[in-house]
């Protein structure tokens, strides 16, 4: 019943075909040609709000309200198990700055990002360069390297936890066989080896993603560039150095930013493989936040920790947003 009404009114919505605006003398170039009051315009476009409604509802509760609530939490001592939740001002923030385990978790997280991001990108680039050559079975190889990306992260973590097992793990077995080591290593329980072990697993799990993105990047490089380089007498290495790598710069930048953002949020591997140990050596920021929220039940302090992470990520997410906006056109093509 309301349908015809909605339809005839929205008929006039587009600027250029507007039925009743011209007589008011407003040209089509004006941003709001409709000079009627705000309520009238809202009413005229009410069906658009209906489209937005379900999304907005969920969004307001689980993102907007949650965000405000998160800020609120940081100013309170908010324990789930205690009935009163007093306002404590900036105490949580002060505590955080002086919390040695927090500082350590930041350093561990930077260690993880700094090691895993360049390594997966480097491996991905190498694989992409090789798979960009005219080979048989390229599809098969590509699938082999991409399979770990498709595997659920928890499964990868479980599997690698076993591979690192001190007594029965494959790593120790083959390293002992090859006489590279004389005694079995404890990998995940060794305070110097635990983080490198987690990094290695993450590189295995993530390199295939860099590979696919790099492959797309490689295929977008115009052939003429290589032809020109050949004519100038550039060898294979020089073509790689002066044509391929510079041409891949946007791809590299994109992968770098994405990689940093996701690696700073590392949690699953840590939870499954090391539980933050040994002696906090693999306690990352998110794992530390998890401990405060769901082991010590201090939601106020945990929320403060989350904002510390937010702050670290902010630089990179802002960069990512700019990149994705600038390149969404290029990517879609």
């Amino acid at each position, binding site marked *: 019943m309301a349908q015809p009404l909605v339809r005839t009114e929205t008929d006039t919505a587009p600027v250029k075909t507007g039925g009743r605006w011209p007589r008011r003398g407003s040209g089509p170039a004006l941003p709001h040609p409709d000079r009627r009051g705000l309520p009238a315009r809202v009413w005229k476009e009410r069906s658009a709000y209906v489209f937005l409604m379900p999304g907005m509802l969920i969004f307001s509760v689980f993102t907007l309200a949650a965000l405000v609530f998160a800020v609120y939490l940081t100013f309170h001592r908010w324990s789930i198990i205690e009935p009163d939740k007093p306002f404590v001002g900036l105490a949580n923030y002060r505590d955080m700055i002086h919390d040695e385990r927090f500082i350590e978790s930041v350093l561990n997280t930077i260690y993880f990002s700094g090691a895993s991001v360049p390594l997966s990108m480097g491996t991905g680039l190498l694989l992409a360069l090789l798979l960009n050559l*005219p*080979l048989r079975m390229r599809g098969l190889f590509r699938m082999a390297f991409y399979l770990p990306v498709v595997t659920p992260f928890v499964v990868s973590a479980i599997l690698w936890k076993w591979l690192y097992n001190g007594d029965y793990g494959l790593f120790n*077995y083959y390293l002992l066989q090859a006489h590279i080591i004389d005694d079995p290593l404890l990998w995940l329980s060794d305070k110097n080896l635990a983080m490198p072990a987690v990094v290695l697993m993450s590189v295995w799990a993530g390199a295939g993603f860099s590979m696919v993105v790099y492959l797309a990047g490689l295929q977008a490089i115009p052939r003429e560039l290589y032809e020109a380089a*050949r004519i100038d007498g550039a060898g294979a290495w020089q073509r790689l150095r002066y044509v391929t790598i510079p041409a891949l710069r946007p791809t590299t930048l994109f992968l770098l930013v994405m990689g940093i953002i996701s690696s700073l949020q590392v949690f699953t591997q840590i939870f499954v493989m090391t539980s933050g140990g040994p002696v906090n050596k693999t306690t990352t920021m998110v794992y530390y936040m998890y401990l405060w929220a769901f082991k010590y039940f201090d939601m106020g302090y945990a929320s403060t920790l989350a904002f510390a992470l937010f702050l670290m990520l902010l630089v990179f997410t802002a960069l990512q947003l700019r990149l994705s906006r600038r390149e969404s056109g290029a990517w879609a093509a």
Partner: protein
Amino acid sequence: MGGVAGGAGVREAAPERTAPARRPQNGSNHFGLRQKTVTYLVLAPLAILFLAPFAWLISASFQPMGEIFSTTPHWIPQDPTMEGYKGFLNVGDLTKAQQGQGHGDWRWFANSAFVAVTITVLQTFFNALCAYAFAKRRFPGRNAIFVLFLATMMVPGQVTLIPNYLIIQHIPFFGGNDWMGSGGHGWLDSYWGLIMPGIVSAFGIFLLRQYMLSIPDQLLEAARIDGAGEFRIFRSVVLPLCGPALAANAIFTFQGAWEDFFWPLIIMSSPDKITAPVGLALFVVQNRTSWTLLFAGSVIATLPMIIVFLVFQRRFVQGIALTGIKG
């Protein structure tokens, strides 16, 4: 590709027939047998290294405990067993003792499937609704709301995780809560809590909106003139034109929902309601020893991902190109 490379010699004998610049005559630049061999010699060991953990996983899922825990690992199960897989075939409730002794629960996978499919369907639909309004409608407040959406994409999930846990706990009228949202556990430990926060994604809306911008307004106008209602236009004109973007959104959402770990970990507690990743991870963290079962469960949890990947392989790569992300 391979065929072209193999026939290169013949092609070069008849110059100018193929694109002239494609393959120069200069032998040193030709991708010859030697380079090819070297490339394979680098690629093959790498591929084996990447695949070995999978081979081990599949093999171990068929090995009895004694064989897994032997000092020499067996790549081929010597005494194959289906025990691991059978451990998930239980029907009905498990006693606490059984849960401790290495029984799995098939419901973990059913839960994962149900939650992932529901989130995927609802999210793709609701995202598309919002994206359409942002892309094709002009209404007061549009830009402000859209910028708000964009801005919140910069907020990492961890920041809203803790407040959302408390919000979920205080949803009125659910889980024994009164109208003020207190007294019970709300949506904690329920599918509602798993699904509802995931049915809209700012990123998905952004992706779909970008895609919908390319739909010409004239098409929508034509539909309007033909008397189509607003929802009809959305369903019959806009949605069919957004195939690739909807597919990308759906694939990544499904993937993300299937392997989501943190959220189900903190809000679910009943052993029969948890999802597969949580069930498997808790198994490890609680130091239970039935690795046969664990490996079998890991294989089962990986299969849907691999199937989705194989079926939508082309879309997958397209999707990555389209969005530049993996769920």
